[in-house]
């Protein structure tokens, strides 16, 4: 069964990327991703880390009229920071990996089952 792990960070966590503790921040993430990879649970090439929410552009069309917004979809406390796809037997396994994510403390991880392959 495939699960998406959606990583949410607070603005303080995003800010770490350009702070003095940037080294620690990135180190924690690469250690986590390495761990998933070594355990053989991560679907390679299916995930991505995202730039800061300020770099986002949001598009909406209403009755054919396109509106473009500078910024992420909603101004919430936590913002999407990246995602990975895991191939594990059950939700409990996915949750076990989720709680090890660096952003679990302070931020959040959403675990979402992935639609089965239509074939």
């Amino acid at each position: 069964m495939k699960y998406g792990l959606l990583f949410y960070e607070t603005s303080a966590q995003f800010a770490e990327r350009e702070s003095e503790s940037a080294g620690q921040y990135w180190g924690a993430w690469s250690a986590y991703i390495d761990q998933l990879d070594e355990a053989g649970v991560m679907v390679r090439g299916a995930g991505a880390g995202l730039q800061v929410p300020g770099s986002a552009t949001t598009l909406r069309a209403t009755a054919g009229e396109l509106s473009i917004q500078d910024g992420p979809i909603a101004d919430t406390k936590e913002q999407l920071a990246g995602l990975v796809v895991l191939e594990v037997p059950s939700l409990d396994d996915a949750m076990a990996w989720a709680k090890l994510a660096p952003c679990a403390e302070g931020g959040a991880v959403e675990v979402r089952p992935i639609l089965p392959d239509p074939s």
Partner: protein
Amino acid sequence: MTASERVDLIFRESYGKVLAYLLARSFDLLRSEDAVSAAFAAALMEWNDALPPNPEAWLCRVALHRVIDIERRERRITPLESLAETADPNEPEDPTMLPDERLRLFFLCTHPAIAAEIQTPLMLQLVLGMSAESMSELFLLPAATLGQRLVRAKRKIRDAQILPELPNAEEFQQRLPAVLQAIYGLYCRDWGTTEPTEAMDLARSLVIASEGDPEAMGLFALLLFCESRRTVVRDVYIPLSQQDPSDWDQEMISSAEQLLQAAAARKSPGRFQLEAAIQSAHVQRAFTGSPSFAQIARLYEALITMAPTTSNRLGHVAATLEANGPEAALALLSRIELTEPYLPYEAVSAHVALRLNDLTAVRKHAEAARALSKDPKTAAYWAEMIQTIQNP
């Protein structure tokens, strides 16, 4: 002029050019800004005795060296680096030859992925080098807030990789009005102080880049009309109605007329075409006595429906004063509400009061106008008017 005054003047004229020069060579926006500031700082140190033969080329060279140094130091492996390697830092192309690069800088700031409310401050900063502090009053925002929003916009340009490119035809039309407005603003800023050649160059290249968009032609025609008279008022301020038309630059006037006709043939009227048409009417009137002020007043009425700015409404008042007399002008004037003191309002009010022979009002408005005049020539004009009404 001291060395720092010279650098100041060149900063005003060249900041945007040097930044556009770096951006066109694919360097990161924030880093390029730092490099341009560093180049100006170096100029302050090194231009003590004399200016280099081509100050802009000097600045471009120093800024380019600087940005390449930083990129190398950080050993960023990006396509940018290879570009930096191929550029010969000793001989940058003459930046004054490349108005298109500055035009792309304007269009970059109008990208729809950048919040509309920060686009104008961003243009002013990137093209004119204005600081958040100096713009804070203009945009009614604390300098710190404005500064943060500017940094955010610049980071977004960098992180989301919004490129300094001219947009496709459809987008071009949508983004053109903001660029026209900015070039007009740039012209107005330089009008009284330095040669507004930068705005003229940009307006000209916009006509070419837009393949003859009627409003782009309208703007260029408008600027040519203004330029044709600029030298006349360089030393003393003379109101338009008292100028001698033979002092005006005939070549510019004829280019402006041609542009305006070409624009009108496209049958898509707009604000800048109307403003240029008003200028054209003033010029024709000065030479031949026709069209009449009544026709000019009607052009203003049309302009106000498109751009109901205080300045256009005051133009309407001034034309009405000549066409229909001071009472009609005063009626229009009384409907204008100001949110802050405004020199043209005081100037027009003083002239209307003069025609009504209301000397108390003349005095009040002339004194307000003198107090608001930043330009000593204009202040002198108002001081003289106050003198005249005191000792008739």
